[in-house]
């Protein structure tokens, strides 16, 4: 009896499998040792190991005896939860239940930065098209710039499911790397004088409970009438927020924020890993996608900062916007706001940018979902 019969997994192991197992170990290391998005990167890392051991029963295999496919549990999860978009949409309910929109009511004009900082998505999409990707793949790569994992998963699973693994890894890794990616880009684009700008905001303004309850309903109806294709994304986010704000579903709100979020995140992470097989992942494409994801994040930051500088051309002295705050228009919440506040304090310990940064960051959460909805609406019209 030879090695192939005794230990078929070893006999069938290739260097590509070993590379993917190493990638899995690196993701687990980043999650545990560096605390980079551990809730997602750890299941993804472990899943990458699970699916890259040859003949793994976690994924679908062909039974050599009968020639029939024996379905693996991760493929069943994938078909039920990702292909149908159920998992990412449930995550949106959880995120909606976690978001407090009252900072936006205090500084509603900062909502526009949630639009400007999505610039990287569209820029990257054009760049990906220049590199030869078709419009569906280019849009899926560009959406990494939303800095919003569930939106990236929804768009990629619909337009380019073969790229889902690489896009998810890129999206979640860069979200975790916001403190490393954003500061040098911001410093490059701003002068010290600009970084010292202090912003006044009405932090003590009280917001009516009725307005906070009406907000998710009104936004859902408005978005639905204009772009029905965006309703799944925006609607589930706003549904989660309504549960939070209505005041009569506190138990459900807490369950959405904790149990639902944790459970679906585990399933989402390990299921995405089912796409991280050596055959799909160990390719030049993966490196290009990860590189383009970084490009998208850099140009999101660029878009937000430059938009703030543009607005400052028309604003009077004393009423200017600190351009660093523009960079918070991405969806990585609250990390981006925290990074900007810390950068502001480094320049001037008495400059408190946290409140405007939080308002902008909440706007970024809405902006990224809207960007996903727009892409889901436009791309099928062309492809």
């Amino acid at each position: 009896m030879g090695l192939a019969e005794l230990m078929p997994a070893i006999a069938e192991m290739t260097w590509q499998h070993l590379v993917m197992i190493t990638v899995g170990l690196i993701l687990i290391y980043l999650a545990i040792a560096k605390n980079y998005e551990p809730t997602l990167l750890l299941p993804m890392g472990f899943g990458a190991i699970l699916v890259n051991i040859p003949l793994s029963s976690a994924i679908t295999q062909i039974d050599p005896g009968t020639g029939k496919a024996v379905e693996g549990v991760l493929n069943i999860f994938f078909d039920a939860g990702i292909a149908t978009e159920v998992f990412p949409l449930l995550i949106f309910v959880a995120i909606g239940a976690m978001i407090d929109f009252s900072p936006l009511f205090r500084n509603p004009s900062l909502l526009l930065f949630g639009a400007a900082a999505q610039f990287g998505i569209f820029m990257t999409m054009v760049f990906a098209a220049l590199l030869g990707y078709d419009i569906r793949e280019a849009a899926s790569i560009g959406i990494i710039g939303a800095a919003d994992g569930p939106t990236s998963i929804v768009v990629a699973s619909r337009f380019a499911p073969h790229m889902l693994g690489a896009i998810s890894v890129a999206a979640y890794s860069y979200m975790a790397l916001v403190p490393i990616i954003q500061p040098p880009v911001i410093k490059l684009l701003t002068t010290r004088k600009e970084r010292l700008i202090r912003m006044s905001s009405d932090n003590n303004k009280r917001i009516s409970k009725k307005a906070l309850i009406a907000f998710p309903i009104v936004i859902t109806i408005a978005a639905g009438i204009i772009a029905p294709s965006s309703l799944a994304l925006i609607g589930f986010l706003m549904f989660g927020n309504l549960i939070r704000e209505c005041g009569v579903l506190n138990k459900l709100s807490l369950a959405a924020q904790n149990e639902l979020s944790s459970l679906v995140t585990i399933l989402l992470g390990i299921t995405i890993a089912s796409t991280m097989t050596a055959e799909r992942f160990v390719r030049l494409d993966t490196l290009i996608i990860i590189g383009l994801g970084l490009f998208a994040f850099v140009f999101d930051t660029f878009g937000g900062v430059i938009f703030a500088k543009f607005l400052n051309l028309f604003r009077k002295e004393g009423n200017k916007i600190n351009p660093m705050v523009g960079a918070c228009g991405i969806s990585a919440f609250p990390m981006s706001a925290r990074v900007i506040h810390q950068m502001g304090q480094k320049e001037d310990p008495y400059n408190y940018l946290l409140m405007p940064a939080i308002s902008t960051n909440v706007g970024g959460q809405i902006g990224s979902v809207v960007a996903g909805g727009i892409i889901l609406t436009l791309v099928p019209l062309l492809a």
Partner: protein
Amino acid sequence: MTTTIQQALFVAGVGIVGIFAFMTLFYLLIKALDRLLPYDEEKEEEE
């Protein structure tokens, strides 16, 4: 210029304009909600 690049430029152009339009609409809705449903200390405490 290939069709894909033209399509990408179209989606980028309409997308950027679209997202600003959406966010401007949301801004106006927030302003309207804030005006129609202002914070009323006595009523909020009753509720």
